[in-house]
């Protein structure tokens, strides 16, 4: 039931699940179970809780101070059904964060991504962009929760690192959203985004380079969003993981 070699050769050209072979009209057992395993990893990533204490230790290891907030979402089940609640900040006494840029790390749809890649990315960019920054860690967070945090801190811009919706090929993609002059009611069109940050996607070093460049442009022009970069790829997947 192994496909002939030439059919199998199609796999050289694409990460898509081509040349899977056939048993009757179905895929062979190995391909079936490989799919199930990838879906299981994605489902587990969606429901995993962010290990906040470990994240704080990892940040501290890079010399980065942090504080904790959460959205008004009580649990993950509600989070998935009520994105509006994930954008609202629970009452907090936010400690004033030094500097004009606010950095937020939100669990989003993949705490796994945040746990794995956020400390290294922050360690690479914070010393360049805002050496005194205190990182705000937010749980049950959507991207727009950063607007409330940035406004509360009177930041000129907010940079939100957040776990992206897991796909089958990667459950640990990190996204970064930058919003100039954050305040309630900002739309997605007013943000700039880097996505698919992970070793096999956009490596952390490249993401750091792009992020530093983007923040520089946003500060220089005093705006963010489509007006800054109108060749941003249109991608339905980011539209949904969104806001």
């Amino acid at each position, binding site marked *: 039931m192994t*496909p*002939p070699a*030439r*059919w199998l*050769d*199609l*796999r*050289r*050209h*694409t*990460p*898509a*699940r*081509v*040349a*899977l072979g*056939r048993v009757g*009209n*179905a*895929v062979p057992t190995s*391909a079936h179970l490989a*799919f*199930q395993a*990838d*879906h299981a990893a*994605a*489902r587990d*990533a*969606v429901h995993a809780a962010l290990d906040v204490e470990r994240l704080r230790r990892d940040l501290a290891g890079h010399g980065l101070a942090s504080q904790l907030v959460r959205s008004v979402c009580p649990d993950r089940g509600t989070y*998935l*059904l*009520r*994105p*509006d609640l994930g954008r609202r900040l629970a009452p907090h006494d936010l400690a004033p964060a030094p500097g004009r840029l606010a950095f937020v790390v939100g669990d989003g*749809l993949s705490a796994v991504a945040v746990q794995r890649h956020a400390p290294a990315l922050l360690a690479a960019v914070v010393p360049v962009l805002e050496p005194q920054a205190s990182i705000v860690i937010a749980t049950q967070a959507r991207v727009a929760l950063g607007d409330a945090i940035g406004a509360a801190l009177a930041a000129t811009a907010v940079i939100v690192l957040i776990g992206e*919706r*897991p*796909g*089958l*090929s990667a*459950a640990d993609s990190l996204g970064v959203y930058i919003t100039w002059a954050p305040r309630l009611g900002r739309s997605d069109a007013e943000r700039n985004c880097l996505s698919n940050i992970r070793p096999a996607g956009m490596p952390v070093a490249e993401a750091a380079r792009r992020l530093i460049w983007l923040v520089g442009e946003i500060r220089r022009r005093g705006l963010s969003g489509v007006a800054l970069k109108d*060749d941003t*790829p*249109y*991608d*339905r*997947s980011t539209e*949904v993981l969104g806001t």
Partner: protein
Amino acid sequence: MAYAHTLHGTRYVFPDLRSLLARATPLRSGDSLAGIAAASAAERVAAQMALADLPLCRFLDEAVIPYETDDVTRLILDTHDRQAFAAIGHLTVGGFRDWLLGDADGPALAALRPGLTPEMAAAVSKLMRLQDLVAVAAKCRVTTGFRNTLGLPGRLAVRLQPNHPTDNPRGVAAALLDGLLLGAGDAVIGVNPATDSPEATATLLHLLDEVRARYAIPTQTCVLAHVTTTLACIARGAPVDLVFQSIGGSEATNRSFGVNLAMLAEAHDAARALQRGTVGGNVMYFETGQGSALSADAHHGVDQQTIEARAYAVARAFDPLLVNTVVGFIGPEYLANGKQITRAGLEDHLCGKLLGLPMGVDVCYTNHADADSDDMDALLTLLGVAGVTYVMGVPGADDVMLSYQSTSFHDALYLRAALGLRPAPEFAAWLDGMGLPNAGAIPAPLAPALIGLG
């Protein structure tokens, strides 16, 4: 106008038609998110009873979104055919359900189309169980054509969707060939571009057209870019078979997609003028999906299924070759789980067919919804019995560009075999000539080298 019904001693009042429709809608997360769903199971059934007693002609007097402020409402009412409506004009919504399940046959349903509004179709579907949604849809017959004929009895077509994360031409070509070898591609060979620019779109258009020509495949190709991008490609002479666009059921939803009815008409005219079809002149491809209006804050308090059906009024104004709802793509805040996705897919399919559309369904889910491949198998099988015009074919059901799970080439083979369905006739003849889809190896005429795969 207010509506009311008393059930188990409790009187439920619904202030207007849109709230009656919303309260009567089987539970889904999007209507709860919008704050318009029934507050209890009993209220939902009371609303369904009130809706069942409502004369269909009421829908011609009370618009769910005002005529003055919404061009989709104007399109619906201005093109309504009272003569065609006369066949059901005396019925209530409940009576209409009984008529659909009883006396109505294929020719009667076809004759009714111009007299049926999307709101009437949505309303009656809210009174139906899954088996009703399947049984009535199976009576509808909608046939369209471009380089092959879609929608004939006993046929099931497949959109071959060879997406690649970076639009790499070899990657697209490899997935495309994989799909052809497994019998997919009669509905369309359609790529979602990772980058919506005229340059990237034109590159993909030329690639798809060259593969189609090199292998002499009787099908059509499409790059699912924004309509303005496709128009720019037509202007520069790129080979455009079909114009794609995502559409919704209110003027404001369409604005959120960056389109209006005039732009769609311009695109329709431009693609027709190319005269690239050989067996038919349907040149539009539309995608829809419950939840897009709420997502764009453009729902006007109308439930997501009714506003989805209104998108089909937009579609039918442009005689499309293909329309599909992307039913599970939008996420759990709109359709929470496999149960809700299943019902929505069958509702959308029926409403599209009743309104005369060549309706396919992207049977799909995302990883944050409570759904899996078992749910997809169930919906796919139900849709096959309902006579769905086409489904998606994605390598291994895993779209590596859009990061969601759809149906695979194998799934379509399963469905055709389980229900005795064949591909579109022109495409079936081509497959037969190649010894597909049951060749164990790549036939010589489809050598990968012919399409740049060394």
